């Protein structure tokens, strides 16, 4: 499919919610020597992150964000026809978190609810999926909940967040343009290899070994091939952005903000430089919120653009990329949407 256009879909609003607990990469993380931590922070651009409390799931953050958004929009629970959750940290392996949230949010039994298993690339895919249901006329109002609980104290990259986005049918809405791609040959670049049917969880997976830095590592952890992810991101994203702009008939000057998945500073700065985009058009939340997986696009919009986007009309290009491998770009106009301030829970 690749490139496509959605009509009659209005972006009605968005809320993001992060945990209250703050972890500093300069104070609280390995490596053990301060100057090495400073070098790490300088290069990945992430100073602090948000970590869920032990009891807290991604869905708890998403629930709070959704309650706030529904109140702001003054949508009744009965009006919500679809609830799509994009996450890789569900409440349980099965059933779908979206169906549990249908009940917790008090939505009607006639609500379509299911999960989508995507990570860092997930936001444009989620917009397209819910948008397609709305464009078909089957759904009048829908919610897209995106985020993950992927942070740990020792890993300097990942941070937790839950977000809610509201879309609705509107025959006068401007078109949304999409470019969505997948490359499964790179599935080992970011993978949690243990716990599925290829390698079921077994006793030996609970025995840690020490890595070259003396840190304990468990065999069932997330594995990330840094050079492979860097090469993928910096090679695939700039041409995908150019292709989507060309398809939409939009120039870079026409776009008010380019919001990229917040991977790390090296990746994000390389993409920005290759596209020759000015920093003021490319908002960043890496320093304060780290890499919140699929939530980075809404978190960055909520934290950096919420007041701007509540007035006037703005054209945004959104680009998500990562685990899969998978990458998606979207160009949309936002006008009169509600953007409550960033929440903490």
């Amino acid at each position, binding site marked *: 499919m690749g490139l496509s256009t959605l009509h009659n879909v209005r972006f009605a609003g968005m809320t993001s919610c992060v945990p209250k607990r703050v972890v500093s990469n300069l104070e609280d993380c390995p490596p053990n020597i301060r*100057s*090495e931590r400073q*070098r*790490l922070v*300088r*290069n990945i651009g992430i100073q602090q992150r948000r970590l869920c409390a032990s009891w807290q799931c991604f869905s708890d953050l998403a629930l709070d964000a959704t309650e706030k958004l529904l109140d702001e929009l003054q949508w009744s629970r009965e009006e919500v026809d679809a609830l799509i959750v994009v996450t890789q940290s569900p409440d349980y392996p099965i059933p779908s978190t979206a169906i549990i949230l249908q009940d917790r949010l008090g939505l009607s039994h006639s609500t379509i609810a299911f999960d989508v298993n995507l990570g860092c690339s997930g936001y444009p895919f989620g917009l397209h999926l819910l948008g397609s249901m709305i464009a078909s006329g089957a759904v009048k109002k829908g919610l897209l909940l995106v985020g993950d609980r992927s942070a740990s104290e020792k890993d300097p990259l990942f941070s937790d967040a839950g977000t809610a986005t509201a879309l609705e049918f509107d025959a006068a809405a401007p078109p949304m343009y999409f470019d969505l791609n997948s490359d499964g040959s790179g599935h080992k670049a970011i993978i949690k290899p243990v716990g599925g049917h290829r390698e079921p969880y077994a006793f030996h997976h609970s025995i840690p070994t020490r890595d070259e830095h003396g840190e304990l590592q468990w065999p069932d952890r997330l594995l990330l*091939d*840094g*050079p*492979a992810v*860097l*090469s993928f991101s*910096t*090679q695939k994203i700039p041409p995908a952005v150019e292709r989507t702009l060309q398809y939409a008939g939009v120039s870079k000057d026409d776009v008010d903000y380019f919001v990229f998945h917040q991977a790390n500073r*090296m990746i994000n*700065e*390389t993409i920005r*430089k*290759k596209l020759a985009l000015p920093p003021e058009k490319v908002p960043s939340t890496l320093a304060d919120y780290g890499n919140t997986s699929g939530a980075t696009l809404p978190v960055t919009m909520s934290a950096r653009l919420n007041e701007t986007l509540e007035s006037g009309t703005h054209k945004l290009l959104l680009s998500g990329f990562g685990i899969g491998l998978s990458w998606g770009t979207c160009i949309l106009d936002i006008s009169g949407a509600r953007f409550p301030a960033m929440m903490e829970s």
Partner: protein
Amino acid sequence: MPSPSIEQFIESFLTAVDFQDPVEVTPDTELRALPEWDSLAALGIIVMFDVEYGKTIVGDDLKNCNTVTDLYKLLG
């Protein structure tokens, strides 16, 4: 894009790896003998090739390099 001299390349190399402690690097320096040559430095080098020299290299290209000169030759 014009090729840099090996001296210019070493200057870019030292900026890209962002080592904490100053270290002397010559064309014959072995990468793995540098005390701070690590995964972060490797990522910096991949970015340097891409942004400064318009050349795509991958992790395996770096693994196959022993010295700074080997790296320089990747510019082709």
